[in-house]
């Protein structure tokens, strides 16, 4: 007889969730990821509200990816009213989004994941022995935050990213400052790749049936915005069709729904982007990809940690390129007028932890319909499968070790639990 395992509150993730492992006579009977965070009904509360006000509210679904929510919602709204932003505005949105990527990856890797591997219960106590790592984490996080600060008013819940562009743009000197600091951060990102290349990727969760979904980047460069979704089974579909291919179901133990593709769970996130789009990498990230290809496994969710490290290098170089392009086009008009008309718009982008999908329907200047699916909601079903695989291999271990291993499995997905309790119309 084995003791059932319950982790009431998974630590070092964003949001409130728990793990429940129920034992039967022959080992693990049931594994549940309990999402205990309360519902916030974002789609329902914004219906009937003014479009601009709803756009200020949607990003508050999640702080770790508020820029991702903001920019995806704004793009969906612009598509709904029939507006296309200028190329230089699109580039600056890419840059803002990259700020979110860098900050979120640095926080996840160093402050949420690394303590497990180094045997600490929290990142702050690592300071005595791993001062350099904590300093790198803060510096990488700071450059990501500064990009969001300069471009969009602050690192959390950026208000300065609106339909038509930005209220105000950073100065030329601020862009140059960002570029200088990004260059200083590049060696830290490379160090992160080296550091994470040495960490264990638990073979217990190897899953040959893994399906990965990612955006097919719009401009042919590894990135964030796209009009099609690529699936690792070779299938592609236009973003407008996502409700046909990503099917959500309510499950009893969670305020967040589970998502399925062809009736199967699938994964989104950094590793899914690399699995689908590695050929679009360039620069130092391309070289590092060639060097570490074996670690970027499609069949192991732990590879997501390493994929994020590689992306840190990529996105820093990409940000420098965007700044160079922007300065070459200087001065840039921050904003175009957007006429609010009736319509329906769909946008799917790559949030730090995977695809985030928005559909917004506008009628008489107000939101008539909204559908949002967040990365963690997409990942929950497969996350549960991998926690189960881990539990099945280790249910006879010490309960503390089993808790630790299953929590690490969840953490590899970089879940945003607040985000997953998003609320979607069936």
């Amino acid at each position: 007889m084995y003791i059932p395992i319950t982790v009431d509150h998974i630590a070092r993730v964003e949001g409130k969730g728990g793990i429940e492992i129920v034992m039967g006579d022959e080992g693990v009977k049931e594994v549940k990821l309990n999402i205990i965070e309360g519902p916030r009904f974002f789609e329902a509360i914004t219906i009937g509200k003014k479009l601009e006000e709803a756009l200020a509210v949607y990003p508050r679904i999640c702080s770790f990816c508020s820029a991702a929510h903001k920019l995806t919602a704004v793009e969906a709204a612009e598509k709904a009213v029939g507006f296309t932003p200028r190329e230089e505005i699109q580039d600056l949105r890419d840059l803002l989004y990259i700020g979110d990527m860098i900050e979120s990856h640095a926080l996840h890797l160093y402050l949420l994941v690394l303590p497990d591997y180094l045997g600490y219960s929290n990142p702050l106590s690592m300071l005595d022995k791993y001062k350099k790592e904590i300093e790198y984490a803060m510096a990488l996080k700071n450059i990501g935050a500064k990009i969001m600060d300069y471009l969009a008013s602050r690192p959390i819940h950026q208000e300065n990213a609106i339909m038509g562009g930005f209220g105000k743009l950073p100065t030329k000197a601020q862009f140059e400052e960002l570029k200088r600091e990004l260059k200083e951060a590049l060696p830290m990102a490379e160090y992160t790749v080296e550091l994470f290349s040495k960490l264990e990727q638990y073979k217990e969760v190897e899953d040959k049936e893994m399906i990965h979904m990612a955006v097919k980047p719009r401009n042919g460069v590894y990135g964030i915005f796209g009009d099609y979704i690529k699936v690792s089974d070779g299938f592609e579909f236009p973003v407008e069709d996502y409700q046909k291919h990503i099917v959500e179901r309510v499950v009893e133990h969670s305020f967040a729904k589970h998502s399925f593709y062809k009736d199967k769970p699938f994964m989104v996130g950094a590793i899914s982007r690399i699995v689908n789009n590695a050929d679009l990498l360039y620069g130092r990230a391309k070289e590092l990809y060639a060097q570490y290809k074996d670690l970027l496994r499609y069949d192991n969710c732990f590879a997501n940690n390493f994929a994020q490290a590689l992306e840190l290098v990529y996105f820093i170089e990409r940000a420098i390129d965007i700044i160079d392009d922007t300065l070459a086009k200087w001065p840039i008009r921050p904003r175009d007028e957007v006429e609010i008309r009736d319509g329906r718009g769909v946008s799917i982008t790559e949030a730090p932890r995977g695809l985030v999908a928005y559909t917004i329907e506008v009628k008489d200047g107000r939101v008539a319909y909204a559908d949002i699916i967040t990365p963690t909601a997409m990942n929950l079903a497969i996350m549960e499968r991998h926690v189960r695989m881990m539990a099945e291999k280790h249910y006879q271990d010490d309960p503390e070790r089993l808790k630790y291993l299953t929590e690490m499995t969840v953490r590899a997905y970089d879940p945003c639990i607040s985000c997953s309790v998003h609320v979607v119309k069936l």
Partner: protein
Amino acid sequence: MENGKVRVGFYALTSCYGCQLQFAMMDEIIQLLDKANIECWFMVERDSDEDREVDIAFIEGSISTEEEVELVKKIREKAKIVIAVGSCAVHGGVQSWGNDKELEELWKTVYGDGKVKFEPRMAEPVEKYIKVDYRLYGCPPEKKDFLYALGTFLIGSWPEDIDYPVCVECRLKGNSCILIEKGEPCLGPLTVAGCDARCPSYNIACIGCRGAIGYDVAWFDSLAKTFKEKGLTKEEILERMRIFNAHNPKLEEMVNKIFEEGE
């Protein structure tokens, strides 16, 4: 206090976790937490326990489940000072924007006939259930809000509340007025200052994320009058003011007054 260190807990109700993220992202936190024992802070500390006694309890998030009602009561019992952090804990958060609709209606729109084993509630501020000693306004609060509050508590003093609006900071920055000159529905005149007029400084109208000023001096009525003159309907005014003030008992009464007078 324990070994000369202040015992701190950071607790989450239903939220986006942005207040904790803001707190965790501060470089200064390394020095601050050197003087503190983290008893509970699930976002960074695996060895967290909601049952431990603390000197200062930071609570973020709105109360949105039955379990969260019990949790805040427990935190109150175990804490000397309770600080409500951010718009969700202080004012119920943007999720309260939906309290013009019935919970059943919201549930049905989102979950259809789906059932889950937890009991949802309409979002409410923490103060509905327990006594709160201090509030950190904002969505999220500014870093200096955290530093000021924690700093004053650590030296055994008590932080002052802010009782003037965003407009004061906006004027001091020399921005042109978004409300008067551009005619946009800026909530600066009734919103608690402390953000250094962040959004108006980016040419974006304030959406009021720090909530209305307390002490019954929030000028819902005079701002509603200005909005009305700019052509906004009563519903539009109420909707905008409610984004971060849905639970304010004065809001509707004061806006109604303006529209009754005009009729």
